[in-house]
């Protein structure tokens, strides 16, 4: 059985992926948010495992992480909430989190649990590709997990090629030199960067993240990339409108 991520990437059209922080706004919202997102046509979901010190994230995701931890979210609780998720949800699910909580859980135990639940991939911003390749790739692959790496406008061509060779799903293209957070739009510099990467004809398709907040930025980002990820803007919307507002938000994107 192929990984759900790979199957999804082969489908026609552009992919909309949504990030949310597990345990926010309320500890028990996780499953309902995932179900609502699928019901409203989202293609893929990144479930954020909250961390006390999310150093790649801007204020919105930081605050949602702090709140989720205050609500009592832990790795074990998240796994417990997700244990039956595959009975109701079939789109690809990715866990996005920092490395330390995974290290404390035990990397192999973490991967094993992900496989049991039906998690398809991981995004771990502070686990560099070099360390992954040397120490953890075998374990991830043993449990059928796709690990997703980030590239930025500053990443050298040589390093992008290396990341491409280690990846087996998609490449997470960070839109600009910045932490996460919604921006007002993409300028010429970013468009040129998107195009430059597209012209590299990498093996792995690219999905753009950071700074996507509405239909306009979604369209700009997916002109040359396979899809885009919305995080902070979605969390802000959840903040104001709660889980009931999910369908309204998704309709404004596409």
């Amino acid at each position, binding site marked *: 059985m192929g990984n759900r991520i790979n199957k999804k990437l082969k489908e026609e059209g552009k992919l909309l992926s949504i990030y949310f922080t597990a345990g926010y706004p309320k500890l028990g919202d996780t499953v309902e948010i995932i179900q609502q997102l699928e019901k409203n046509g989202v293609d893929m979901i990144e479930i954020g495992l909250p961390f006390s*010190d999310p150093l790649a994230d801007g204020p919105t995701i930081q*605050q949602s992480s702090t709140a989720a931890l205050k609500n009592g979210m*832990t790795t074990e609780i998240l796994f417990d909430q997700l244990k039956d998720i595959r009975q109701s949800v079939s789109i690809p699910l990715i866990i996005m989190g920092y*490395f330390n*909580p995974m290290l404390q859980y035990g990397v192999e135990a973490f991967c094993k649990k992900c496989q049991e639940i039906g998690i398809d991939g991981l995004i771990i911003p502070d686990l560099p590709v070099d360390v992954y390749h040397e120490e953890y790739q075998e374990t991830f692959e043993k449990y059928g997990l796709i690990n997703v790496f*980030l590239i930025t406008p500053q990443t050298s061509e040589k390093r992008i090629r290396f990341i491409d060779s280690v990846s087996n799903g998609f490449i997470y293209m960070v839109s600009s*030199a*910045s*932490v996460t957070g919604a921006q007002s739009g993409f300028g010429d510099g970013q468009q040129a960067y998107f195009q430059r990467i597209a012209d590299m004809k990498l093996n792995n398709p690219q999905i753009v993240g950071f700074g996507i907040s509405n239909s306009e930025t979604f369209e700009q980002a997916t002109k040359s990339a396979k899809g885009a990820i919305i995080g902070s803007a979605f969390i802000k919307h959840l903040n104001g409108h709660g889980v009931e507002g999910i369908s309204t938000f998704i309709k404004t994107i596409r």
Partner: protein
Amino acid sequence: MKTYQADEKGYYGEFGGAYIPEMLYPNTEELRQNYIRIMQEPSFKKEFDQLLKDYVGRPTPLYFADRLSRKYNTKIYLKREDLCHTGAHKVNNTIGQILMAKKLGKNRIIAETGAGQHGVATATVCALMGIECVVYMGEIDIARQAPNVARMKMLGAEVRPALSGSRTLKDATNEAIRDWINNPVDTHYIIGSVVGPHPYPDMVARFQSVISEEIKWQLKEKEGRENPDYVVACVGGGSNAAGAFYHYLDIPEVGIIAVEAAGKGIDSGESAATSALGKVGIIHGSKTLLMQTHDGQITEPYSISAGLDYPGVGPMHANLYASGRGEFISITDDDAMNAGLLLSKMEGIIPAIESSHALAILEHRKFKPEDVVVINLSGRGDKDLNNYIEYFNL
């Protein structure tokens, strides 16, 4: 030969490395590729040495503490980093890094600070060089360290409050890292201790290594030998200790003693003794020992001394602890405060509370009469006067 120095990937045994998001890779990579070469350039060395001499006031004395030695019946030398310009060893590192930043063509400096000592040392060298300076400081620390905030402002730095997480040193460090992610080209991040991703721990240790370089020739003059029996230093992140230990790391005859802050006691729940309470994990891009929950969330440490109030420890020290090369001792608030008062009364030196932790070793551990014990007096107590006043009802 087994070494306790960093290898070329920035590992001390299993500790260290660079666990950073890809957004930071170009920044640290530029530094990694250049730092050793730049530090070895004659023009760099000349300027660094000159500034340490004329501006910082080095060499700092190695002072034989006669009365203290008689009280404890052993030979005690104090390495007087408290006499450095700005009042602590921190400036050795900021002088080095500002010169590094200039060589790399950077025109903006960022730094984190807890108590404000490293922030002041950074603001100082930025004023010296006429470079823009932004210091991140936890909102809570800004409120409790008002004099140092004023110093930084006077020196022309902008102090930005860190409003995230627990709003203290670890969060100020997160904010500085985020700033660096957002400003990858023109900005250099001056980290204040031997922490963070490779090459910071090694680079900062090298800049601070002037401490043990001087101890060697100074002790030779005074005792006829370069090697003491013990070298003692307090460890927050571990930069003054790294400097004091540096040239002795691979000399097994020299005992290395690292002193951590026990706060209100190891088991009190209010402590900063990372080696006793920490587990291996990742903090600020480094694999090291850190204080954390079962679930891997980084916890907030406590010590009466703001400079020792960091939930991690540099990877060099994690390795010294794990390998048994270093002896790790933790000292409570009370014992440190008393040691500070004792030094003031017996030697006429008011130490920083951080350094008082190192001094408290004398009450906690027996040394032989013929032992030569060098204690690194990392800073002076001016900044801590309010704490001393409150504590002793002065």
